[in-house]
């Protein structure tokens, strides 16, 4: 174990935020121990347009809803979920 280990995560976007970012899926490498909140903050620095959506988003990691303080692990799938509108 080293203090500067990195992990790789897959980030998924849907609906309006997907169109704003211009991609349904991104791969990002972040320091081990990064939380969902920190990942979202990094992404909004990279894509400032995401700021308009962050207060609307719920987040699922590996297909289960999680809180913003959840720590990410290597290979996680992080889905940014805007309010749904089926039916």
């Amino acid at each position, binding site marked *: 174990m080293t203090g500067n280990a990195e992990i790789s995560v897959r980030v*998924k976007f*849907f*609906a*309006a*935020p*997907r*169109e*704003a970012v211009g991609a349904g899926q991104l791969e990002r490498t972040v320091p081990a121990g990064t939380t969902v909140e920190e990942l979202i903050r990094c992404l909004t620095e990279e894509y400032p347009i995401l700021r*308009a*959506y962050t207060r*609307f988003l719920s987040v*699922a990691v590996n*297909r289960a809803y999680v809180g913003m303080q959840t720590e990410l692990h290597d290979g996680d799938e992080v*889905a940014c*979920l*805007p*309010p*749904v*509108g*089926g*039916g």
Partner: protein
Amino acid sequence: MTLFEITPEPLSADAVIARLADPANGAVVTFVGVVRGETDGRAVRYLEYEAYPEMAEETLRQVGREVQERWPTIREVAIHHRVGRLEVGETAVVIALSAAHRPEMFDALHYAIDRLKEIVLIWKKEVWADGIEWRSESGSPMPGSFPYLDTESH
């Protein structure tokens, strides 16, 4: 035989009802949601539905479980939702419930469609002649819901 399905293919209410076939049934109720030609007084050109399929089918199953927990007389639940581009008049969703007798079935069906709109991971983009909106039942329009220059018609 899949009771809960997200599909880009056209939906048939009869095909969904057929999934529930059982001699113990005395009643089947269905809800068929179709694409309406106007919202809030604006003409709709078409809709685009998008899902997170890996989670959306599980949330459809959750709606079915909740219906059967609340109304144990419901024998089976089937929900099929279409994704992709849908024209006005096409079927977006079919919900079918079966039971031995009809009491409570309409309440259960009402619950199923309301709950689907709340929790199932599907998004809807309305495309009008002069704009778009990603529409959610949760009220406030999301950013990205704005008139834009329609490049398709140029």
